[in-house]
């Protein structure tokens, strides 16, 4: 941390920004300028822009139609497909808020999927499950929770760097998942399980409700209780938070546990949707997408202020981007290059040094234009 002062997150209201008095005319901010200052403004603008690009190239993109009691359309599809990533990003947001990072989520997705598939078993008659469905789901989520607790204890208890602590599970986790599936892709033939990731409720995919439920729980916990405030306090200054009487350790362990649980839930959605569990490939590169979604949503990786809504928007941006790449007929291989460009752009915009450098470049022409 070279200079902590310009590293502060963007202010919510324009009044609270004392540093940029020279560059902006804060005396009479228009409504648009005010709205653009909001932390969620840029993620939302990005999402709307992507949707507009999609709609421009594909006229039926915004069309949602009601068929056989289900809603069909590209928008519904994006929501449905973004669900696992959104879940993982929500959990990741809490971890990032405590100055941490969890790179084991992809492995936890694979473990949870593998445990669920093993518990249900491969009986091909489609009617029997090795154990009851609630027990299978509970076991998968329980294992995921344990994984999260393990990470949390290593970070908060043993004091390891978060990247390294979660690297251990990232390396070992795929091995454990393959151990459970015995190196095979386990196929599931038990229809009740398919409802979680492929079923519909009130005409909408059930996975949307899962995400909405988790989001509502976390959002309420963060805004209606002091938990959100505590998380920010720990992220901004762990020592000050401890001195102020916050049990930072328990809070950090809790954040990692919730992150593990979210990843486990995402694993259930994925395995239920593809009706199988692949220990080697399920959730591959998921940790990177989730970190990208969290950053896109405006949560700084340096900890502190976080935005659950922003992470949801970030996950939707990634899925819409993927959809756009596919529907524009661009070769899907470009996906990774585009993602790389997005990450570079976002992190440069988040860097105070880069904004200062830009300002130096931008101020001169502005003065010239005003005459």
């Amino acid at each position, binding site marked *: *941390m*070279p200079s902590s002062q310009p590293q502060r997150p963007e202010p919510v209201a324009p009044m609270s920004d004392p540093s940029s008095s020279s560059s902006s005319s804060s005396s009479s901010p228009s409504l648009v300028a005010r709205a653009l200052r909001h932390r969620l403004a840029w993620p939302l603008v990005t999402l709307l822009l992507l949707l507009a690009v999609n709609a421009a190239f594909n006229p039926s993109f915004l069309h949602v139609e009601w068929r056989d009691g289900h809603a069909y359309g590209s928008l519904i599809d994006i929501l449905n497909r973004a669900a696992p990533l959104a879940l993982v990003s929500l959990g990741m947001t809490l971890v990032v808020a405590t*100055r941490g*990072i969890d790179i084991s989520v992809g492995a936890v997705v694979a473990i949870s999927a593998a445990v669920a598939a093993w518990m249900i078993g491969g009986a091909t008659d489609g009617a029997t499950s090795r154990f009851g469905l609630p027990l299978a789901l509970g076991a998968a989520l329980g294992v995921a929770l344990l994984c999260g607790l393990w990470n949390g204890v*290593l970070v908060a208890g*043993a*004091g*390891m*760097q*978060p*990247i*390294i*602590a979660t*690297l*251990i*599970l*990232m*390396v*070992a*986790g*795929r*091995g*454990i998942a*393959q*151990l459970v599936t*015995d*190196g095979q892709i386990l196929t599931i033939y038990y229809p009740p399980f398919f409802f979680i990731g492929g079923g519909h409720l009130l005409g909408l995919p059930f996975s949307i409700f899962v995400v909405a439920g988790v989001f509502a729980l976390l959002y309420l916990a963060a805004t209606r209780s002091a938990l959100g405030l505590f998380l920010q306090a720990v992220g901004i200054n*762990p020592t000050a938070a401890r001195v102020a009487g916050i049990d930072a350790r328990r809070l950090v362990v809790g954040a990692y546990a919730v992150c593990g649980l979210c990843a486990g839930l995402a694993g259930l959605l994925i395995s239920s949707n593809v009706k199988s569990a692949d*220990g080697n490939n399920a959730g591959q590169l998921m940790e*990177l997408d989730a*970190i990208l979604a969290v*950053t896109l949503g405006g949560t700084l*990786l*340096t900890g502190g202020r976080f935005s659950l809504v922003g992470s949801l928007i970030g996950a939707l941006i990634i899925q819409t981007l993927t959809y756009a790449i596919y529907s524009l007929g661009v*070769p899907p*291989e*470009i*996906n*990774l*290059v*585009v*993602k*790389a*460009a997005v*990450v*570079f752009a976002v*992190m*440069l915009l988040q*860097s*105070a*040094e*880069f904004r200062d*450098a830009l300002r130096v470049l931008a101020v001169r022409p502005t003065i010239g234009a005003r005459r």
Partner: protein
Amino acid sequence: MSGIATPRARPVAGATAPARASEGGGARRLDPKYLPLAATVSLFAAMALLGSLRYDGFFSAQVFLNLLIDNAFLVVVAVGMTFVILTGGIDLSVGSVVALTTMVSAALVERHGWSPLATIPLVLAMGGVFGAAMGFLIERFRLQPFIVTLAGMFLARGLCYLISIDSISITSEAYAGLAQLRIPVGGGAALSLGAVIALGVLLLAVFVAHGTPFGRAVYAIGGSETSARLMGLPVRRTLIGVYALSGLCSALAGVLFTFYMLSGYGLHAVGLELDAIAAVVIGGTLLSGGVGHVAGTLFGVLMLGVIQTLIAFDGSLSSWWTRIVVGALLFVFCLLQRFFAIGRRRR
């Protein structure tokens, strides 16, 4: 977190270590910072002994040389990674730079008929520039190494797929000849060209780390970047140089990997960055930077190799046990590092 919590400047180079040890507690014993390395070396010896006692044919020169031959590219990547980690950073892009190097080499040699003599310097320069660019972003704009190199990883893999989605196999005779080259080391055992290059890189890296101003600056930055800046060391140049070095090492490893696989493919070396980080940690380098040895990294890589060899010799264990064992080893070594860090603070 821990990097901020320990602002004590660590010794700048290995040369100052004896002075510190004698000042410490009177009795002359092993400096604690060598303990993880000692643990790694003895664990490696123990595993090799176990393998030799349990399995016929394990104790032969060729089996041990094969550890080097099969992991030559990993040695080179891990050496570059060691420098990055010594400054307190991390480089996640190494695996994809290896893949990109194999891809570019294969495309140039096979599709455009370039000679290896022109291709190899070009891909090496490409790797160095790629790393330097990431280092520039990290240094100039104060970005987190983790995120920058993550984006670099996406970019390099994406570029592979832009060249071709499928694997391009190399039929060039020059490449095949270099790949087949075996250098006898006596007793009927032989090393491949890749292994010899890897050993050369290792020796060079040991010299750079412990015998040049650049190496001194690397250790100083890892101890405390602010102190290094105040001492007047070229922090900016060194940081960019470290990432450029890692990129160069990755590209060289990519060249060795091309010899090894004789093909270019976008899915080559997936997860190599994890292996490299694991090897560096097991080799006794502290992830918070400033403490470690390039030579330890060799033993880290050999340790990963001997685990794989043991599992292959056993036959009854499936390949995924490798990952679980490596994860467990990482866990043990990280815990060890934590205890040393705590112990050092108490003294």
